[in-house]
């Protein structure tokens, strides 16, 4: 298992500094967009709620669509680039060093999971920092959220953000696993990325809260209401998707399948 961990560390280096810089820049721009696009923001709470789209909305104008999609597009792009370089082009050199195809896959999945945790931790810190810089106070002033003010203090708002982060991470990781699986089936660059982006767009246009990519509209999960538990259902369903995808990925780790991929 030590070799697997060593291999994961090696794979994590495939996420280049340049792509991290671009991601941070995109996240800052996205936060600044929230600050300037939405009118009437007075507090950090208002800004964060609007930024992540925690309000139930029937439709998103084009600009907001891009705004919501941006971080996920970056993750999907970075994952695609990772698959192309670390999974595909380096396979001959890394498999021979680890010798077991299942350990090799596990190392990749571990690296991708760590990348997702890092990305969303960074994203939440950046958004938090930008909003703190632009606004003060943790209470709702916007008319839209007045109904929730009574039962959402600062502590439970942080808990809400934690739940949101978990949903975002799990939902996105599920799509990354799908991206990896599609790569194993198609072995063509860009196909899995396009499919994942289309899934996100479909989720923005239509309401499919529990489908893959449903986390892009957190407004569907009534996170302000602690008793609702809709998010628990989402986490359970997405975990189920992840397990199915992991099963399918491991089923691919046979020499017969690798033969088709890397032959």
């Amino acid at each position: 298992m030590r070799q697997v961990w060593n291999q994961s560390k090696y794979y994590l280096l495939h996420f280049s500094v340049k792509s991290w810089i671009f991601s941070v820049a995109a996240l800052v721009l996205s936060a600044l967009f929230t600050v300037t696009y939405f009118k009437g923001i007075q507090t950090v709470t208002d800004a964060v709620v609007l930024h992540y789209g925690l309000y139930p909305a029937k439709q998103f104008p084009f600009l907001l669509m891009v705004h919501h999609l941006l971080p996920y597009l970056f993750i999907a792009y970075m994952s695609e680039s990772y698959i192309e370089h670390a999974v595909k082009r380096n396979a001959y050199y890394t498999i021979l060093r680890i010798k077991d195809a299942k350990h090799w896959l596990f190392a990749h999945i571990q690296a991708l999971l760590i990348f997702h945790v890092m990305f969303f931790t960074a994203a939440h810190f950046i958004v938090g920092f930008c909003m703190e810089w632009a606004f003060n106070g943790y209470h709702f002033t916007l008319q839209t959220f007045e109904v929730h003010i009574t039962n959402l203090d600062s502590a439970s708002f942080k808990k809400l953000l934690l739940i949101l982060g978990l949903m975002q991470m799990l939902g996105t990781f599920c799509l990354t696993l799908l991206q990896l699986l599609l790569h194993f089936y198609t072995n063509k660059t860009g196909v899995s990325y396009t499919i994942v982006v289309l899934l996100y767009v479909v989720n923005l246009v239509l309401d499919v809260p529990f489908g893959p990519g449903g986390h892009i509209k957190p407004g569907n999960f009534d996170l302000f209401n602690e008793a609702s538990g809709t998010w628990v259902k989402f986490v359970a369903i997405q975990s189920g998707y992840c397990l199915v995808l992991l099963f399918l990925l491991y089923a691919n780790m046979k020499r017969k399948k690798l033969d088709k991929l890397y032959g």
Partner: protein
Amino acid sequence: MDDSFREGKAVELAIEVKGLAKSFKHEMVLQDVNLHLYQGKCYGFVGRNGSGKSVFFKLICGFLLPDKGTVRIFGKELGKDMDFATDTGVVIEHPGFMLDFSGFQNLNYLAAIRNVIRKEQIYQAITAVGLDPENRKKVKSYSVGMKQRLAIAQAIMEEPRILILDEPMNGLDKSGVLQIRELLKSKISEGVTILMSSHIAEDIQQLCDEVFEFDNGSLKPLQFV
């Protein structure tokens, strides 16, 4: 005299190939290939483009699954006793080096996977292929020849007993070719088994103990004059 005895000493059988066959979409690439490859010898594989050299190497490594036949490496059967070739260094296609790191950093991170060699050995491998391990230049600014040298360094750094080199002299200048030839000669004398393909007749003539030609899916021994 049996191949397994040289100078009165028993030589270990490194690779045993029996009845190996491989086809892609009904096109037979290899059929009924039988070979005994011994430790400390260099074997050359020649043939026109697409004749099956790379496919043969990938079969030996375990990256491809044969339609028929078996490959044994030091007595262990691929696909039965192990998934992939053990104790083997390869240069097959271009390694996906991390472009933003130096040559040494790339090999250091790659070596950390198995963690069986020290930094000095990585330095030695890089020096042996004619690169400077202290050079902090990023791999993205390397020439084709430098990348090829680095690929050879990653194949030899963990001192494997088998080297599989698909066109190792590709992209190398004249001095590079001479340097790699000397390196491979020293590896052979250390007891490493080398399987290499090359379009350069001189490489094959100078390095290889035996040469095989791929022709219409079969492998024929070739005599050099």
